[in-house]
């Protein structure tokens, strides 16, 4: 029986009360993102009553100690501030369970705890297992969930798993991880989280494209000259992140997941419906259509990797990549990558998608820009003018919004034209701040809506594309060189050449 009081009250799937079991509960992700997200959901009244949180980690800790640590961090980072009375009620639903990730006894204890809580809960024994630990423990946790029977749904409830990135480090490891995941939890109950998809502007891409009449007719190779996707960061390897980063690099850390997800959203065909698989079916077609680089030479021609040298950002002198903390001084890992990507399908034939992602660049910005073809060179377009092309920009972060550049006549008796910009900003148009990506994604997982999560085939096809590049860099006899750029600039000259060879330039940001 449906809940009749939900009729017309909300226009989304209803999240169900559940026990959220977080593995890696003492880590940064839990403290900074997951618990504040759940708290904010509770504050908004969106967290289903009866939901509980169990943190699982290896350190000895009491419930009270765990809650106190979470409270301290929530005070600092909660998007909506920290209300002590509300926190007390929320915290009463949080408990801590000490267990080694490989210890069967710990999982038996966890099962007992869940059974006890379910016995007094309001409904079905729903369980959401969140893998927020270091990725090397994913296999062990999944194996133990299976061995202990916790992976089995019981008495009409469900058992779901949320997996944080990285989803493997290459195709082989991703396939192995997916096999372990699917041996434990069926694919339709598996939620591979990519927090970029939870961002308001990423969700808005489909609305912009398919709820407006003016964009989709132009959204193809007939009108679009090329597309640029930029994700630039000013940060380097602060806070000890170098240890992980030097094993990953920009291509695997950002491009394989976040940026290819954005690419698939902007390039996909209209889905048959808005169901999770309806959308993901179309996204995966895009990723399957990415033209693969056949050898190291093709990689060299289409991909630039680079490391930053010392330089200055916002007046501060910063170290080069190889001098950073926890970075191998002889590292061949790339904190910067730029790619020219072709999508071999009907819609995008001949339209290059240029993508760049880098650390220690001039400013922090993530955006997608569509550069339209020039109008016919007659009438006004015989006149000299800069920035003749229309550019549509979708800003993902910060300053979320969109803008459209067009030409306009300068006031005066003569015909002179200048580019002008129409601009829409989320922050000034809508009073309510956007929820954090994790809030939306946690709620979706509780509601069984996998639309904003990556499916197994999406992940594996993305790795196929990425592996060609990684193999050319690290396994070929003539690997493409590692370029360099000064920290605080917009990247290496080689990345500029990637576009200038085609008669294009990176958008000035």
């Amino acid at each position, binding site marked *: 029986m449906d809940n009749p*009081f939900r009729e017309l009250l909300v226009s989304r799937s*209803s999240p169900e009360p559940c026990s959220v079991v977080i593995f890696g509960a003492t880590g940064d992700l839990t403290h900074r993102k997951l618990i504040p997200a759940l708290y904010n959901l509770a504050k908004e*009244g969106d967290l289903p009553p009866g939901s509980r949180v169990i943190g699982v980690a290896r350190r000895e800790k009491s419930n009270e100690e765990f809650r106190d640590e979470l409270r301290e961090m929530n005070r600092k980072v909660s998007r909506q501030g920290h209300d002590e009375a*509300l926190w007390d009620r929320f915290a009463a639903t949080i408990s801590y369970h000490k267990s080694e990730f490989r210890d069967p006894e710990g999982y038996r204890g966890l099962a007992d705890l869940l059974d006890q809580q379910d*016995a007094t*809960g*309001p409904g079905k024994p729903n369980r959401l297992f969140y893998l927020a630990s270091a990725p090397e423990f994913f296999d062990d946790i999944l194996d133990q969930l299976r061995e202990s029977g916790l992976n089995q749904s019981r008495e*009409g409830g469900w058992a779901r798993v949320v997996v944080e990135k990285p989803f493997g480090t290459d195709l082989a490891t991703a396939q192995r991880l997916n096999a372990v995941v699917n041996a434990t939890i069926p694919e339709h109950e598996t939620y591979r989280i990519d927090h970029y998809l939870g961002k308001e502007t990423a969700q808005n891409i489909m609305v912009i494209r398919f709820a407006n009449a003016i964009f989709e007719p132009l959204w193809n190779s007939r009108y679009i000259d090329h597309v640029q996707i930029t994700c630039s960061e000013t940060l380097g390897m602060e806070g000890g992140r170098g240890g992980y980063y030097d094993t990953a690099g920009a291509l695997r850390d950002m491009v394989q997941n976040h940026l290819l997800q954005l690419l698939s959203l902007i390039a996909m065909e209209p889905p048959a419906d808005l169901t999770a698989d309806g959308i993901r079916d179309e996204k995966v077609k895009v990723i399957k259509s990415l033209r693969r680089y056949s050898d190291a030479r093709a990689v060299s021609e289409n991909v630039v990797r680079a490391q930053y040298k010392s330089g200055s950002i916002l007046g501060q002198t910063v170290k080069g990549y190889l001098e950073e903390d926890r970075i191998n001084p002889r590292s061949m890992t790339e904190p910067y990558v730029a790619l020219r990507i072709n999508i071999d399908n009907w819609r995008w034939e001949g339209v290059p998608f240029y993508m760049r992602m880098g650390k220690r660049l001039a400013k922090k910005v993530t955006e997608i820009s569509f550069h339209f073809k020039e109008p016919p060179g007659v009438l006004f377009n015989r006149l000299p003018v800069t920035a003749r092309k229309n550019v549509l920009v979708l800003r993902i972060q910060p300053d979320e919004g969109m803008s459209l550049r067009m030409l306009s006549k300068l006031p005066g008796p003569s015909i002179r034209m200048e580019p002008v910009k129409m601009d829409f900003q989320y922050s*000034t148009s809508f009073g*309510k701040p956007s929820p954090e990506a994790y809030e939306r994604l946690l709620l979706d997982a509780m509601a069984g809506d996998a639309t904003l999560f990556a499916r197994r085939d999406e992940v594996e096809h993305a790795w196929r594309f990425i592996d060609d590049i990684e193999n050319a860099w690290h396994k070929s006899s003539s690997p493409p060189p590692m370029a360099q750029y000064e920290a605080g600039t917009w990247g290496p000259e080689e990345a500029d050449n990637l576009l200038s060879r085609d008669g294009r330039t990176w958008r000035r940001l």
Partner: protein
Amino acid sequence: MDVTIPESLSEALKEELFGEETPLAEIERRLDQYFAVEPGVTRASLMNLAIYTEDPETLPADDESLNQITHDHACRALLLGIVPHEENLSVRCWIKARCQLGPDGKGKLCSEQVTFLLGGDCQSCLTNLVFSHLRSDLPLVMWWRGELSNHFQESLYTMIDRLILDSSRWVDPAPQFAKIAQAVNARTGRLSDRRGQLLVHDLAYTRGHQHRRAVALLFDPPAAREYLPVIDRIEIVHAAGHRHTALYLGAWMTRQLGADLVSKHRGYFFYQRTGGAQLTLALVEIANPARSGFVTAIVLEGGGGRFEVGTLIDSPLLEIRSRFGAHQTASVLPGPSEGDEDLISEILMRGGSNSLLAQVIPRVTAML
């Protein structure tokens, strides 16, 4: 054509509360001038938002309402004050910008406000004033304060996209609801961009939004839903002056449960559910409730299950509790917004068709 200024407004005018007095024909030009000379200013607008009142003494308070609403919703604001009993057709107007720092702390983000004070029999003049001072292509939201007078006529309401009113302030609600029904069913105005019916928001209904969410949350667990067919008693406890919100909540719950009103007697409403089961709705008014809130408790009972929404002492939160079978739950969620401006802000934020209200209104009128 000068309107007689009510004595109570003279202080506000002396302090230039409504901005710079401007000749009617100069409004747009002077607004343009203002924004042309102010550097670093964004003239932001998402909608046309008009407040209409036939009690000019409330204009300073209405001005403050606009101040609060425009903080979150940039708009072209129109403040329309009607001076009753004025013999001659007359109008005075003022303009001002409402600015705040941009989100990055730089630059200013401004809404613009035009205040009109109208006297005389100015039915068509009111409509034309609104028409001629709208920002094009943006929706018109009108907050109508008080009773719907004969100024509420077809040429005006067919221009409106969203109409906001508050039935709890009406002396005689039945004819007012009839006017609303007529407006909702009227065809779209020839100059309006809206498709479909006029969207109506009654603040008395909006005040119950968090309570409706709370009731919905109570029945999200599948085990709780098994009690829905056997709910036979609903009680709503409300503060004096908030009977309309309680009526709306009762009408909404009984509609969603598929129950039809059979009879009523002194705050008790007797329903028959699909299948013949009986359901009683009781509205209990308390003059000085011990707990805060305009609706202090909602209880649904039946089949041994009890589902409650209540307010906490000294807390703005709502508490929901349920007891059914071996299950007991208790949880809290944010309480309802109290101020009209907060409610309107929520309405503007949520948008949507609000179509459930139109289905609930006939049930409320049957309960009056």
